[in-house]
């Protein structure tokens, strides 16, 4: 079956170098377009985007709302389908996958973090993470994942008993616990103040550094760009610019 045939791109985990030529691509995006139609109105959310993300890379996607960055993230995360163009995850063409195959892809390879955490209110922190590890192939233990985000002392708390920053870190623990190949974060600090936002960014950086998980972060906040290997800027459904950070900044030093 094709779903099981989706192979992890690349082999062992290596430290990310700025020189991309030595890494294998995780995602290849070619001339991607997405058109939303509501009645007679046609909105071009993506208008011919080309990009490549490499293994172990931390990418920041910047741009005003409506620029197409979220649509791109949703398509490479297997949540949405493209109108035209192609997306490859390793050797698998995601744009040709069925709904069932996309479900399997999300289950095995992708971790998501959203602006509004999306924790299950009826499950504790530990259980929210276990929810995902139960159905994963090579997960870490939930307490391990929670320890990585510095929440090993809050495992039996329900979402309603935690602060926003803590909830977001549980969401990150949940996303990384299955050892995903990619971590896709849509405005992970959007609902947080700067102090808790830093904690969340630290958790993401640590995961990226220690596990080598390819990480894509969408943000409005230009300060966050400094923690990335590469920064992609979006405008009107196109990628307007791509810069490589020669020197990355520690999340604690990010100017908000």
């Amino acid at each position, binding site marked *: 079956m094709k779903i099981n045939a989706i192979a992890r791109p690349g082999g062992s985990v290596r430290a990310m170098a700025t020189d991309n030529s030595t890494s294998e691509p995780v995602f290849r995006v070619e001339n991607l377009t997405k058109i939303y139609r509501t009645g007679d109105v046609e909105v071009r959310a993506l208008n011919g985007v080309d990009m490549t993300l490499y293994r172990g890379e931390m990418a920041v996607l910047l741009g005003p709302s409506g620029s197409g960055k*979220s649509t791109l993230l*949703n398509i490479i*995360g297997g*949540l*949405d389908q493209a109108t035209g163009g192609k997306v490859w995850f390793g050797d698998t063409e995601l744009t040709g996958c069925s709904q*069932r195959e996309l*479900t*399997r*892809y*999300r*289950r*095995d390879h*992708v971790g*998501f973090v*959203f602006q*509004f955490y*999306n924790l*299950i*209110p*009826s*499950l*504790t922190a*530990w*259980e*929210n993470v*276990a*929810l*995902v590890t*139960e*159905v994963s192939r090579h997960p870490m233990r939930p*307490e391990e994942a929670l320890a990585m985000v510095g929440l090993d002392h809050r*495992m*039996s*708390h*329900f*979402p*309603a008993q935690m602060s926003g920053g803590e909830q977001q870190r549980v969401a990150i623990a*949940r996303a990384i616990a299955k050892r995903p190949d990619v971590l896709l974060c849509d405005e992970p600090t959007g609902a947080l103040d700067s102090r808790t936002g830093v904690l969340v960014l630290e958790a993401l950086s640590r995961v990226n550094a220690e596990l080598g998980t390819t990480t894509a972060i969408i943000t409005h906040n230009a300060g966050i760009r400094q923690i990335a290997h590469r920064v992609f800027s979006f405008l009107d459904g196109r990628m307007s610019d791509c810069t490589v950070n020669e020197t990355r900044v520690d999340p604690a030093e990010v100017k908000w």
Partner: protein
Amino acid sequence: MVAMRMLDRKLLRDLGRLWAQALAVALVMACGVMTLILAMGASRSLEASQSAFYDRYRFASVFAEAVRAPRHLEPRIQSLPGVSAAELRIVKPVIITITGMTEPASGVVVSIPDTGESAVNRLYLRAGRLPGSRVPGEVAVVEAFAAAHGFRPGDRFDVVMNGKARRLSITGIVLSPEFIYAIGPGDMVPDPRRYGILYMSETVLSSAFGMEGAFNDAALTTMRNADTRAVIEGLDGLLAPYGGTGAYGRKDQMSHAFLDSELTQLFAMATIIPPIFLFVSAFLVNMILSRLIALEREQIGLLKAVGYTDLAVGWHYAKLVIVISAVGLAIGCVAGSWLGRGLTRLYGEFFAFPFLIFTHGIDLYAIAATVTVAAALAGASSAIWATVMLPPAVAMRPPSPTQYRSLAGAAVPTNPLFSQLTVMVFRHFLRWPLRSTMTIIGTALSVALLVTALFSFDSIDAMIDTIFFRADRQDATLTFASASGPEAVTRVGDLPGVIRVEPYRSTAVKLKNGRHERRMVIHGLTQQSELSRVLDRDLLPMQPPSSGLVLSERVAALLDLQIGDPVEIELMEFADRKVSVPVTGIAESYVGLAAYMELTALNRLLMEGRRVSGARILVDEDRLDELYAHIKQVPAIASLALQTVSRDRFRETVRQNISYSITIYVTLAIIITFGVIYNSARIQLSERARELASLRVFGFTRAEVSSVLLVELALIVIIAQPLGWLAGYGFAVLMIRGFESDLFRIPLVISQATYATASLVVIGSAVVSALLVRRRVDTLDLIRVLKTRD
């Protein structure tokens, strides 16, 4: 003004969006309204038809029979205080022979005064004319009997009257308030084919039965405020010397008693069932409205922020409830009126009314409207109150997240017994205990409703089994024209095809214990009785004890008697001779008020020597026709009851009658289940869309995600089953109690198949509603749900 219109527009759009759920609630309401209108409408229509028929055709209020009383008693009867009119009649059993019908029919012939118009129990003439006075061969017959045989005025048939065969010519088709429900000997339901009421001229009958200057039956109407008891006592005093068997009022008159018990049942249905539906619909309204308001928190805040008063906002949501109620009310009123007419017609066929009066009291609709809207608003009150009380600033912030509790401490299980999906199901279930409980109750009520509807088949089957296969196993019962000596039994034994003969003696009595008293018949049976048997409380045959009286459970309860207690017997056939006899046994009996004695013991009591009233016989089936042909010729036989025909007729009639109500009940139960399950699933879906979408994002399959919702529903439906069985049992007990009368007692029997069928129907409709909701889970818009704030 313009602003109000905007709110109304919002109302319409909300309804458009919620139409499926609103319709489900409206349908549940409609069920309540429908049963109310249906049962109340039918019961009022029947009552109106009954009372119009009684009034216009002067239905008697006191009845009495005697052996042979002189007509010169008439002025003394007329002048009893309170009596407004008296009709003294000759009423005698006849055997009827119809060409082309092998088994003999029986009937009674009633005299009509030579003046033509009776003062009491007047006849409604449907066709033709009344028989001429003094014209020997003319007869009027009741409509049901005529219809069963296709008789029209001018047709002829044969009867055996007082041992003589006669050919009668029909002059007219009539109906009588006295025989709205005409039931033949040995029958449990009317069978107009085998039982007819005939009317003939008084002069003709008195010469046919040797009753010149005499009567054996009196029917009296009384004045408005007359003391019926005093009239009965006075009449008893006058008739006692002439074999009077005790006068009685309407409640002991067969036709009236049956009609009355039917009306009571309808009334019970009108008062027991609708509240169930109103309760469920109030709960559903509460559920839907609470959810809607939770979703519209910010809009409520905004409305208040721009200057709408608290009251205006509250009224806006109240209107939503009122509109839903109005839809339910309209559907219920239309369906109820329509089905009510159907039900009234069905009763009209079963009971012989000359006309039906359909009453549509505006008040009934007004009551239905008030009760329904009130129940709905009561259900909505807490939700509406919450909108009124919500301060705008608070409303515009999202509500604080739901607090959950751990099931068993907060310890982190290292090797969890349940998957996290299962934990989600249980926590959610327990987080909303009231709602979960109400959903369970709603579902259980539909199971209960089905059990209540379906158990009647079991009980009727058990009743048929007991009566026809355990107690009275004879093929036929012959009644002699008068009590006869043992030689009559020998003669019956000589009839062709008769395999076994068992004599019996029956006598009308009044049993008394202190202030309790009841009229009934004592049946005398031989100890060797094999065909007709007395059953004990375990339904096992018991020998009638050689002395003393065996009472059925109901009689014992009515008279407050136990084994060993003495009971006073007033022998009606013997001028109120009174004797005291001990109760020596308690028996089970489902029909009428029963008391049994050993035959010789009864004869000793009556001091008449060895007399019998009739015989029960077992017949060689192959020689039935021969036997029928003979019986028609035997003058001493007054009537013949055929057990098999009776049984089949009973079964058929009961099935016909209950299948109508069962169809209605099953539909209602399905609607409740659907309303409850579909709505709770939809609400859950709306509350948990975000949660479920997240699961889909993490890579859970559609089946896994739906299972979170559906397992909880399944849990609710499963827990509801035993509760529903229990409640159904309770309703069944209430129904049985409601139906219990001196005429009938239905045993409480509920088969496992009934419980299973009830559960299957409910589970089936739950599955359908779950599938409908599942389709929505499958098409959840992941991105949109996740992008929105909770």
